[in-house]
């Protein structure tokens, strides 16, 4: 390590932009190898994917619709991470958030939208937050490793919700595990409908108001972490719990607080998927978005702005991938899951893979350009 420090370290902006970019390229290169191995052209695949994700109005709508999910789950991972906690339970928190949302939306049927929508959102956030608070409390008070407890809570949430969907919440007469439809007052308007209202014509897609709520959440998360006392305490605990304790900060309280906010964010996933699109609670609507949130948080360097960008990237991967599967029959949705896996591997677990090379390169550039860069 000492040798690395003797040469000038990598500039901050390069670490924040070039490293993730290189990691992404590496992930795409490995994925390209697999595509080539099954006899398709990686370049054509990339072309279809980019066009499918950004090429026309509806495509952009779909990309942002998927990105909405990733903003919520990415924030859920990163907010906990600020406190030094690894929240791998976004999946379960989102599931419980969906349950809370459904209970409010169906239970308070008859309220006008102006009341029902905020209350349903509150239900989603509260259920998600509560589901995250238990592992946080267990970590703080009993030392139970939060990675393991949140994994367990994912499975427990999935079982719980699927049990309710064949029992109390089951839609009468339906064969599949799903709740009755939400009252229309709890539906979030689609963006293309909203924009048509102000005279803008855009392609129809499932993109709905949740996208703007997600952007708002990212801004709020930034404000909470960077500008409030609670956020400050969470950052101190995340940086050095021992010092925080000496400084009079309650570590347990910060753990629980960070996870409450994180779980609340994950819980909001249902806004997009359920209130925006499905209009009922279905089993497994979380579709692994909670796990991909880990990659989103890492790629976005745990900064809300970075998370929004990373979420759009993953949204493009989803939407472009769906289009690709349609254009190239040899490529299925499974392939997209694989690409995501590689992105998580390179951007998350191997984030420092190219740091030595890049540091060396910058050192050379400095040597050549004198004091520049």
């Amino acid at each position, binding site marked *: 390590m000492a040798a690395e420090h003797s040469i000038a370290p990598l500039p901050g902006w390069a670490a924040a932009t070039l490293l993730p970019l290189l990691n992404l390229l590496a992930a795409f290169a490995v994925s390209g190898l697999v595509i080539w191995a099954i006899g398709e052209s990686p370049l054509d695949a990339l072309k279809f994917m980019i066009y499918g994700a950004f090429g026309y109005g509806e495509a952009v709508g779909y990309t942002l619709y998927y990105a909405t999910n990733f903003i919520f789950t990415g924030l859920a991972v990163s907010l906990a991470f600020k406190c030094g906690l690894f929240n791998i339970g976004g999946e379960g928190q989102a599931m419980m958030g969906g349950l809370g949302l459904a209970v409010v939306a169906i239970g308070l049927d008859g309220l006008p939208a102006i009341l029902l929508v905020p209350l349903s959102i509150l239900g989603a956030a509260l259920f998600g937050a509560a589901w995250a608070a238990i592992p946080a409390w267990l970590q703080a008070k009993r030392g139970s490793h939060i990675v393991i407890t949140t*994994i367990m809570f994912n499975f427990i949430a999935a*079982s719980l919700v699927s049990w309710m969907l064949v029992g109390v919440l089951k839609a009468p007469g339906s064969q599949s595990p799903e709740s009755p439809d939400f009252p229309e007052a709890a539906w979030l308007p689609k963006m293309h409908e909203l924009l048509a209202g102000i005279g803008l014509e855009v392609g129809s897609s499932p993109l709905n108001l949740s996208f703007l709520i997600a952007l708002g959440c990212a801004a709020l998360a930034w404000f909470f972490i960077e500008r409030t006392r609670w956020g400050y305490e969470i950052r101190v605990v995340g940086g050095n719990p021992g010092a925080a304790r000496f400084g009079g900060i309650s570590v347990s309280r910060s753990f629980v607080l960070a996870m409450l906010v994180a779980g609340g964010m994950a819980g909001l996933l249902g806004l997009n998927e359920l209130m925006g699109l499905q209009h009922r609670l279905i089993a497994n609507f979380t579709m692994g978005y909670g*796990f991909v949130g880990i990659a989103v948080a890492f790629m976005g360097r745990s900064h809300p702005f970075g998370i929004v960008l990373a979420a759009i990237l993953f949204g493009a991967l989803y939407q472009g991938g769906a289009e690709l599967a349609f254009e190239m029959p040899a490529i299925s949705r499974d392939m997209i899951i694989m690409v995501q896996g590689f992105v998580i591997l390179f951007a*998350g677990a191997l984030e420092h893979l190219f740091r030595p090379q890049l540091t060396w390169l910058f050192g050379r550039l400095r040597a050549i350009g004198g004091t520049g860069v």
Partner: protein
Amino acid sequence: MSEFYLDILILLDSTLRLATPLVLAALAGLYAERSGIVDIGLEGKMLGSAFAAAAAAAVTGSAWLGLLTGIGASVVLALLHGWVSIHQRGNQIVSGTAINITVAGLAPTLANHWFHLNGQTPLLDGPARFQVITWPWVETIGAVPVIGPLYAEVISGHSAITYLALFTVPLAAWVLYRTRFGLRLRAAGENPEAVDTAGISVYALRYKAMIINGVLCGIAGASLSTALGAAFVRDMSAGKGFLALAAMIFGNWKPVPTLMACLLFGFVDALQGRLQGVDLPLIGEIPFQFTIMLPYIFTVVILAGFVGRIQAPRASGIPYEKE
């Protein structure tokens, strides 16, 4: 012989069968964690091996060649995780998650490309699948009251992998507690600085642990697709890797208690299969979603320290940096 006794025996028989992949995967996790590497990628390695084993068995017609291929695939993934954790000092949780997701996508993609069966492999039978082994004199001994049915129903009639899995438990206990390698391995997970000071490579120990981890996960995966099942099916590991992780914690990172936890989880699984649709007196019908989540609730309760005391290896999950 009473109906009830036979019911119990059949239940124990399925317990052993269902616990087989759990035991192997839990021991795999145990070797990794004891050496200082957290492995939540058990799921992905099992799935990868299940696919590789089923694909190779389908092509070669030999379950044993399938098993070897499965082990090979799993060891490659284990070494990838090892490299990320040891040399790259990457985040081990993220690496495990990445492996789980990558394999969940890669396996059906390759299956589709090679076999065109919508992400599955062809159905295996005959020597391409591990057949149950019937022990000698089952007919004769089976006629003996009480012990006979136990021999015929529970002890006899499993695949080679199940017997192998049961054998790996005492083997693990012996390796970890009775060999020099085991002592060093445990030290690498508890106090790697001390191991390094003694002039022993922490890195080499951890890589060796990951190879063992890969072999065990490989056998576990092969058991899913070539012994318990007869083909690779999308997502067929179905959370068993995480359940194995839970069993390892439940067993306090020790081989024999881990086996007991796996048997308990296997029993719960067998029981829920048996109780499905059965109206119990007083309780009524137990929804299977409840029995499914029982092992996870057990694990949380154990982790919370409300029952007994557990102790994870101290250096587990922390990359070692040489001085």
